[in-house]
């Protein structure tokens, strides 16, 4: 099952449409999309606007591939589960977000081996090769020991 998620705050029709058209072209019926406040309604894949965290978490665990906007939470959750993820960043110029923080997030996680599609064409071509989108890097449930120690040390001085 491919689980598509774009968060809850703003539309990301460009990603939803690209996945919808890809699923139609390839005859894929095993795709579910959480589309947020979208203007575009998928015609070929099952979808919901929003999912509550328990339902969202279940779909994450059951997915064999996550396709997501380049949101920190989406990427971190996939890395915790070692589920392959393919991300496409939102663009401020296209009014998909208010600033280009997702471009920076995609660049940063891209360096760690997270596959990034920079546009819809690349998204479709990477989905065609999604069997090789292995998520090399599994992360534990916690932040780096250095960060946890720094916070503990701060909290030890009242």
């Amino acid at each position, binding site marked *: 099952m491919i689980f598509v998620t774009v*968060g809850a705050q703003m539309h990301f029709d460009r990603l939803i449409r690209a996945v919808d058209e890809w699923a139609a072209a390839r005859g894929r019926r095993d795709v579910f999309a959480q589309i947020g406040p979208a203007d575009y309604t998928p015609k070929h894949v099952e979808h919901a606007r929003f999912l509550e965290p328990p339902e969202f978490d279940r779909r994450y665990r059951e997915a064999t591939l996550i396709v997501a906007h380049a949101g920190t*939470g989406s990427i971190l959750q996939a890395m915790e589960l070692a589920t392959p993820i393919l991300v496409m960043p939102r663009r401020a110029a296209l009014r998909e977000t208010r600033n280009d*923080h997702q471009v920076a997030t995609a660049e940063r996680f891209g360096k760690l081996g997270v596959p990034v599609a920079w546009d819809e064409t690349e998204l479709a071509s990477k989905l065609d090769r999604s069997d090789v989108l292995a998520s090399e890097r599994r992360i534990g449930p916690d*932040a780096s*020991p250095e*960060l946890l120690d720094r916070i503990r040390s701060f909290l030890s*001085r009242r």
Partner: protein
Amino acid sequence: MRGFRRRRPRVLAISSGGGHWIELMRIRRAFEDCEIVFATVSDAYRSHVPDARFHVVPDATRWDRVNLARCAARVAWILAKERPDFVVSTGALPGFFGVVLGKATGARTLWLDSIANVEELSMSGARVGRFADLWLTQWPELARPGGPEYAGAVL
């Protein structure tokens, strides 16, 4: 004063939803020796922290004055009720109010800039930094004297 009455420090950990909440979850191990209270924007996140006290705050954006006021009022109410020794936040606006109002009520405050933030875009970090006793960035190249400190990331 408040420290004398309790053996373990009380920490209010507050954030909005989505990635901010996920980042907060990834630092929660640092709260193990504390009495922890969570506040976030959806009751559904309670399932992630079933053993902790939990408050819901209205979400808000900078462009929505009515919800801004409701969010600030709710955070003030939580601070008055819980009287935390520390306020820790990973953003965004509920955390901003948590740190600013928490500082005003005498708590020590920690602001962790999201890993999604880059310097010129981190509005909330730039505004909240001076209210934080400890201001952390997750980008080593953004650390600077008088600005955020780098001490690792949520990865």
